[in-house]
């Protein structure tokens, strides 16, 4: 069952008359009870998407099109560009929640964690008593095997990994349907990463959140954590597939290149050689006519530079590449 679907999401940053096209007709589905991983290199629009999905885009971002349907509610994302965001404010934290990128600094340094938990709960229910919120937060921490005494601490008194997990617990305190995790693991050492990944799995397993969008540049981590993986490049989703299939047989040339440049723990990893991706990401100031990856792609054809590749759905996966489109056509004709 689909929990949330993002349709036709386009957004750009405007700075001094120049537009930077950050998101270009992005479409994604998050299934109930699943973790959707979103992977891509820096500047591909991952964090921009996280800010839009969590209904809290930055002041210089203009969302020109896009809808988000979460659990039966249709949200027009274009309203979210400040000012008109009052209707979105009510959904933040309760329907969609953000697990932020700089989670280590996500807590107010001059306020006890428990008081911040109260602020979060009070944003959803203005009349909630401090003692009640404290109790609920403590119960939640306990349920997630985190020490409830963290509520009495100031953020600086918690270790980095603990802070990250406490932030995760706070982010899901109001049982949001969809959790958008924006590179929550990038500042953590591997053992803290492990604990965070376990925590996220538990949130899903115990039904505290219904679905997670996990954004990262760490393919190896995603291959373990995610149910499905979407690969982004230059503001577009180029391929989406079940995690195992994407890692073992990527179709889009960018996905192939991305996977060839990292080590994913799987049989045969020992003997592999790593290759980089030649060239650099495209300039996003001008809209791209064809495939964004064409200039760096070893399989590029003439059509790739001029026409945008269609989204080709095969079974439970899809990708947007002219090569796949031709293969598909040949299969139909044949």
């Amino acid at each position, binding site marked *: 069952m689909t929990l949330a679907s993002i349709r036709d999401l386009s957004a750009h940053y405007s700075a001094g008359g120049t537009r930077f096209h950050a998101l270009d007709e992005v479409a994604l589905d998050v299934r109930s009870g699943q973790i959707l991983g979103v992977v891509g290199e820096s500047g591909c629009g991952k964090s921009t998407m996280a800010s839009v999905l*969590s209904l*809290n885009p930055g*002041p210089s971002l203009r969302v020109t099109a896009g809808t988000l349907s979460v659990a039966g509610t249709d949200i027009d994302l274009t309203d979210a560009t400040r000012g008109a965001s009052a209707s*979105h*404010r*009510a*959904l*933040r*934290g*309760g329907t969609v*929640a*953000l697990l*932020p*990128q*700089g*989670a*280590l*600094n*996500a*807590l*107010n*340094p*001059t*306020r006890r964690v428990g008081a911040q938990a109260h*602020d*979060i709960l009070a*944003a*959803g229910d203005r009349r909630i008593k401090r003692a009640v919120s404290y109790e609920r937060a403590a119960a939640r921490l306990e349920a997630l095997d985190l020490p409830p005494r963290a509520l009495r601490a*100031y953020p*600086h*008194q918690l270790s980095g990994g603990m802070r990250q997990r406490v*932030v995760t617990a706070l*982010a899901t305190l*109001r049982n949001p349907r969809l959790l958008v995790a924006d590179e929550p693991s990038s500042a953590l050492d591997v053992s803290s990463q492990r604990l965070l990944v376990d925590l996220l799995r538990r949130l899903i397993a115990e039904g505290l959140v219904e679905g997670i969008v996990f954004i990262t540049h760490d393919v190896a981590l995603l291959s373990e954590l995610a149910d499905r993986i979407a690969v982004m490049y230059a503001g577009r989703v180029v391929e989406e597939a079940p995690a195992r299939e994407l890692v073992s047989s990527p179709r889009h040339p960018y996905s192939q290149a991305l996977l060839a440049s990292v080590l994913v723990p799987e049989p045969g990893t020992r003997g592999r050689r790593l290759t980089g991706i030649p060239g650099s990401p495209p300039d996003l100031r001008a809209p791209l006519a064809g495939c964004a990856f064409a200039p760096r792609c070893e399989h590029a054809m003439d059509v790739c530079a001029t026409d945008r590749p269609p989204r080709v759905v095969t079974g439970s996966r899809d990708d947007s590449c002219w090569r796949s489109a031709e293969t598909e056509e040949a299969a139909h004709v044949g």
Partner: protein
Amino acid sequence: MGFLRHLLSKLGWYAAAFAAALGLNFFLPRLLPGNPVDTLVAQALRGGASSETKQRVYETYIQEFGLDQNLGAQFLTYVGNVLQGDFGTSFSRHPAEVSAMIADALPWTIALQLPAVLLGWIIGNLVGAVAAYRRGGLDRGIYLSSLFLTAAPYYCLAILLLYGFAVVLPLFPTGGGWSFGLSPEWSAPFAADALSHWFLPFLSLLLVFIGGQAIGMRSMAVYEVDADYVRFAESFGLPDRKIVGYIFRNGMLPQITGLALAIGTLVGGALLTEIVYSYPGIGTLLYDAILNKDYPVIQAVTLLVLIVVLVANFLVDVLYGLIDPRIRAAERGDR
């Protein structure tokens, strides 16, 4: 334990600062050209007396005030008296007690300054935090008007207000602490009269102070606005009021120093305002004392300023820990 040691070392520094300032307090007024007794004698015996009488009166005063002793001996006497709480008698209004003169003037200054500083601090900082958080036109408007208010010298704004609201529109009296014909007492008519005299100088101080604080807070808060914790709080749809509160608390450390300095310089800052409005406070007292080279009064007032500055700074040191738990932890020696 760590905190106690921290406190003691702070106290040591304050004692050293106090000793150094006490010396300056004593010697600086004496560097003024001229002699207090000259002025006094000239006023006391206008023309009429013979030069021999003048000489006699002059010598009596010199001896009475102890000005015939050398500076070192005078300084030791001064320190000894101060330590016993004796500030001596005024030269120019002999034989009035300096401590009584200060006790008369101090309540007026406190009543004028303390509300202006405290209210100005709170309003200024809130305005600054809101401006930084809301950005856009509101921010620019607040920034420019604050810049204007704080750049205008105390006395300019005081004179403008005086001209506008006491001369052109005679809503308020032009000066003094109370009207002629009344004398200070605890009664409703006198209180109302004093309040109407108090309002304009209060307003001029308040406005200048709001401006300075708003600018300071705004420049602190623009950094806080983009902090991760603000974005995180926003992602829960926390009310603006709450988020401004977060920013306020985190941006206010340097502002607390500003508050301490402002309280410390209360008297000095008030000087010009009090002169413009002929307000019967410490500022006017100090001004007259300097004109008459009234060393004991100058010394006592500057000593008072010194003590207030030191105490305010000490309180800030303690207060820092209360506001920011990280500083408290560092002072205790753990993290």
